[in-house]
C-alpha cells in the first residue's frame, strides 16, 4: 500500500517536472517597456500564431486578480524570441503584474511576475512625494505654516530642515507603533490619538536633544519647532503610511520626500516673496492675498509634474 503511494507520487512528480522546467525556461526575461507595454523575451523561438493571439495571455495586477487588463495587440519580433504586449490603458508600474501564458486549449504554459526593480519603486515613492504629489502645492497641506514662515529665505530653509528631521523621525516611530501595537491588538481606531501623541513627543525630544547637543543650532532653529506641531503635513505622513500599508523603507522614503517637498516649496515661495517686497502691489493685495495668488501659480506649475515617471 505504502509502496504504491510512493510510486504514484514519484510518477506525479516526474510528470510535473517537465512542466516546471518548461515554465522556468520558456521565458527568459520579462520587463515593462513603454507606459502601456510589457516585453517578454523567450528562451527559444515560439510558435508565432500562439504568440500573436492576444487571448493566449492573461495579465492582471498582483493585488487585484479579478481585474483582467485588456490587451490591444501582441507584437512578435522577427526571430520570434520577443513579444511585446500593448495594453489599451497605461499600466500602473508601481504594482507587480502577473502574466500567464496559455496555449489554444487553455493549458497554462507559464505564469510570471513582472515588476520594477525595488529600488526604482522606492525612488518613485520619493519623487512622487517630492514633486508629483507635493504636499503643499498639490495636496494643500500645511498651509498655515507655509504662509507664516515663507517671508525670508533663511527662515524658510531653517523651517524646512527642522521639518524634514522631525517628519522622518516621527514617521519611523509611528510605523513601529502601527505595525507592532496598533495592528496586533486591533486598535486601528486609535490611529489619530497615537500618531498626534507621537508627533508631539518627537518634537519635544528633538527640542531637548538639540538644546543640549548643539545650542547654536538650537538658537537658530528652535523657534520653528513649536510651529511643527500645529502642522497637518506632519500628521498626514503617518496616516498615509497606515492607509497604504507601507513597509519601513517605503515609510522612510515617503517622509523624506514629504519633508524635501515642503523644503522646496518654502524655498521657492520665500524667493518670490522677497522680490514681492520690492514690487509695487495695490494696497488691497498686500501681504497674504498676493502670497495666495503666487501659491496658486506655483500649484499650476506643479500640475506639470503629474504623470512624471522617472524609473
Amino acid at each position, binding site marked *: 500500500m505504502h509502496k504504491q503511494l510512493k510510486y504514484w507520487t514519484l510518477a506525479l512528480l516526474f510528470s510535473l517536472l517537465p512542466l516546471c522546467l518548461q515554465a522556468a525556461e520558456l521565458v527568459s526575461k520579462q520587463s515593462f517597456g513603454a507606459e502601456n507595454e510589457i516585453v517578454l523575451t523567450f528562451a527559444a523561438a515560439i510558435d508565432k500564431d500562439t504568440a500573436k493571439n492576444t487571448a493566449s495571455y492573461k495579465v492582471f495586477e498582483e493585488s487585484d486578480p479579478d481585474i483582467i487588463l485588456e490587451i490591444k495587440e501582441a507584437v512578435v519580433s522577427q526571430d520570434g524570441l520577443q513579444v511585446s504586449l500593448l495594453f489599451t490603458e497605461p499600466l500602473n508600474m508601481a504594482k507587480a503584474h502577473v502574466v500567464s501564458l496559455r496555449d489554444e486549449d487553455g493549458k497554462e504554459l507559464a505564469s510570471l511576475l513582472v515588476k520594477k526593480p525595488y529600488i526604482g519603486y522606492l525612488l518613485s515613492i520619493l519623487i512622487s512625494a517630492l514633486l508629483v504629489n507635493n504636499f503643499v502645492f*498639490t495636496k494643500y497641506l500645511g498651509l498655515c505654516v507655509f504662509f507664516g514662515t515663507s517671508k525670508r529665505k533663511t527662515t524658510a530653509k531653517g523651517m524646512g530642515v527642522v521639518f524634514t528631521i522631525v517628519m522622518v523621525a516621527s514617521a519611523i516611530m509611528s510605523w513601529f507603533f502601527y505595525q507592532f501595537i496598533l495592528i496586533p491588538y486591533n486598535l486601528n481606531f486609535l490611529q489619530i490619538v497615537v500618531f498626534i*501623541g507621537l508627533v508631539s513627543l518627537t518634537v519635544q525630544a528633538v527640542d531637548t536633544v538639540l538644546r543640549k547637543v548643539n545650542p547654536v543650532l538650537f538658537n537658530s532653529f528652535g523657534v520653528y519647532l513649536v510651529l511643527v506641531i500645529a502642522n*497637518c503635513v506632519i*500628521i498626514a505622513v503617518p496616516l498615509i503610511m497606515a492607509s497604504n500599508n507601507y513597509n519601513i523603507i517605503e515609510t522612510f522614503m515617503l517622509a523624506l520626500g514629504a519633508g524635501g517637498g515642503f523644503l522646496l516649496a518654502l524655498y521657492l515661495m520665500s524667493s518670490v516673496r522677497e522680490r514681492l517686497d520690492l514690487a509695487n502691489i495695490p494696497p488691497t*493685495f498686500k501681504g*497674504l*492675498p498676493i502670497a495666495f495668488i503666487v*501659491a*496658486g501659480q506655483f500649484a499650476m506649475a506643479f500640475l506639470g509634474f503629474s504623470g512624471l515617471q522617472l524609473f
Partner: protein
Amino acid sequence: MQLISRGILSENPIFKLALSMCPAVGISTTVMNGLMLGIAVLFVQVFSSVTISLFKNKIHPRIRIPSYTLTIATWVTVIDLALAAYMPEAYAKMGIFVKLIVAFAIITMRLEMFACKESVKDSFWDGLGMGLGFLVGMMVIGLVRELLGSGTILGYDILGFKPLLFFILPSAGFFVVGLMMAFFNWIEIAYKRAKGLK
C-alpha cells in the same frame, strides 16, 4: 450672542485670522463639501472647548498643550468614525481632511486663548461662534467656486452653463482665497477712507 457674531465676522478664522487654510483651499470645490467639513469642525470645536473648560482647574499648566491635543484627537476620532459609518460617500470625498482636523491651528488656539480661562457656558458659545465662522467661510468659498466653475449650487443647475471651468481645478483654491481676502481688505480700506473723510 456677541461671542457668536465675533467668530463669524470680526474674527473669522479663514478670512481674518488666516488659520486652517488647508481644507479651505483643498476641498472647497462645492458648497456641500464645505458644509460637511464645516459641521465636522464645528462639532470638534464645541466639544473640545467644553471639555477643556470643564477640566480647566485640573490640568497642570505645563502639560496643557499635550492635553489639548489629546482632547482634540479624541473628538476627531469620534467624528471620523461616525462619518465613516453614516455618510460613507461624503467621507470618501473629504478623504484625509477629516482626520487632519486634529492639526487645525484654530481649535488649539481657541482652547489656549479662551476655553482654559472662561466658564463652560461662554466656552460653548465661543466654540459655536468659531465653528460657525469656519463653516460660513468654507461655504462662501465653495459657493464661489461651484457657481463659477460648474454653474451649479448644491448640485442644482443655476446658470445653465459653465462660466469658468478653471475654478473647479484644485489650484484655483489659492486664487479664490487670495481674491476674497483682497476683497475683504478692499472693503475695510474703503470703509476707513470713508470714515476718515467724514
